[in-house]
């Protein structure tokens, strides 16, 4: 049977209506896999039936939706509330019940006084817990941020196109050490601040890349994020990176005597 005859036999319509036997279904699936024109016609039939059904659709009664969603099993992530079973009251003699209920009323009154006092102290505790909770949420946020950073750092560090360049102190007696992570494909540059402290109010540390013998400004180092990893400007073709201490806001060209660290790229 050619694919044209197959299509015109009307078997695809039956397939979409779901009334074929298993071997017939398998045959349709085989023909679809082998003949793109059969697959295309099947899709056209499906598409047409879907649109026809939409066109001829009838809005179901409104309560059906609510009932359905109420009945959906909860996701396993959501804890199930404890069920409290009420025991039916057992039958007892009336006068005994009377005495008991008076006692219960008295006890309830005393309990009410007790709980009123208790309530006052608990509401204070509640306030404290709420503020504690919001503090913990903040802390969690910070932890998340630092986690994201670490992941970013890890992704960068493990990328085969990332070079890790060690920048060492250029002045005697300084033990400064920093790392530049430079992805030569994406050209992104991150600076790991290492043990670099913040400069004074009037000054900024500025990163430079040496490209074809000339220093290129890579931006001043932003210490406002407490992150140890700072994104700098993108660069290509760098042979070395250096940091200088410059007046606030940085300069267009570096002040060489104020260089604090330098690292050459080994190839």
């Amino acid at each position, binding site marked *: 049977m050619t694919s044209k005859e197959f299509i*015109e*036999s*009307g*078997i*695809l*319509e*039956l*397939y*979409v*209506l*779901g*009334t074929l036997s298993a071997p017939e279904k398998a045959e349709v*699936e085989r023909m679809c896999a082998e003949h793109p024109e059969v697959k295309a016609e*099947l*899709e*056209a*039939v*499906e*598409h*047409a*039936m*879907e*649109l*026809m*059904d*939409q*066109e*001829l*659709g*009838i*809005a*179901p*009664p409104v309560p*059906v*939706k*609510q*009932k*359905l*969603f109420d*009945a*959906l*099993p909860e*996701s396993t992530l959501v804890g199930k509330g404890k069920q409290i079973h009420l025991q039916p009251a057992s039958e007892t003699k009336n006068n005994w019940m009377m005495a008991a209920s008076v006692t219960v009323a008295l006890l309830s009154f005393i309990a009410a006084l007790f709980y009123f006092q208790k309530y006052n102290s608990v509401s204070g505790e509640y306030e404290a817990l709420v503020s504690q909770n919001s503090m913990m949420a903040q802390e969690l946020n910070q932890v998340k941020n630092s986690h994201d950073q670490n992941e970013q750092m890890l992704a960068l560090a493990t990328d085969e196109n990332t070079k890790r360049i060690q920048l060492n102190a250029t002045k005697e007696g300084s033990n400064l050490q920093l790392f530049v992570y430079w992805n030569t494909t994406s050209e992104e540059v991150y600076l790991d601040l290492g043990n670099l402290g913040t400069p004074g109010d009037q000054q900024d540390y500025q990163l430079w890349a040496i490209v074809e013998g000339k220093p290129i400004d890579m931006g001043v180092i932003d210490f406002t994020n407490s992150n140890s990893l700072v994104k700098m400007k993108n660069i290509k073709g760098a042979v070395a990176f250096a940091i200088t201490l410059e007046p606030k806001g940085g300069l267009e060209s570096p002040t060489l005597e104020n260089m604090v660290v330098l690292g050459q790229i080994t190839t």
Partner: protein
Amino acid sequence: MSGRTVYIIPEEELVRRVQEKDKLAFEYLYDRYSKAIYGVVFRIVRSEEVASEVLNDAFLRYWERSEKYDSSKGKLYTWMVNIARNLAIDKTRSKEFSQSGKTDSVESFVYAEAALPMEEMKVDGIGVRELLSKLKPDQAEIVDLMYFQGYTQSEIEEKFNIPLGTVKTRLRAGMILLRKLLNVDK
């Protein structure tokens, strides 16, 4: 849960999210398809009460068995509507339903539409009966029985004594004409 929903979630993502038991995605699925599916089911069972029950059962099944859907075998809607159609057909065959009865003679199919409520007759200006009246009677009969009433080809062969090959070609010819009438071809 109200207002006109804009259907923008791509089918693949919708399937994945429903399979991950994402209730929002499932609500989107309901909003998007419940009308089409309820229409199909209603035309088979002919009762608001039974159709609501079938729709509910069908959606519970989509929720519970979404991982069974295989996109290589067809579109999501095809899978959904087949489950619903089968549930509806099962209902019509069950004991409780046999009293009210589904049409079982060629003669009655043309009158069956009269039993449907008003809103079904004209949906966006198009009713099933109006559509069928545009087909040749023999095509309209098969399309009505199979597409709108949920009969299988072998049931039609047995009950109405129409050969299987004829059932298939009439169905296809009728469906092609409907596709043109409703202007739904891509």
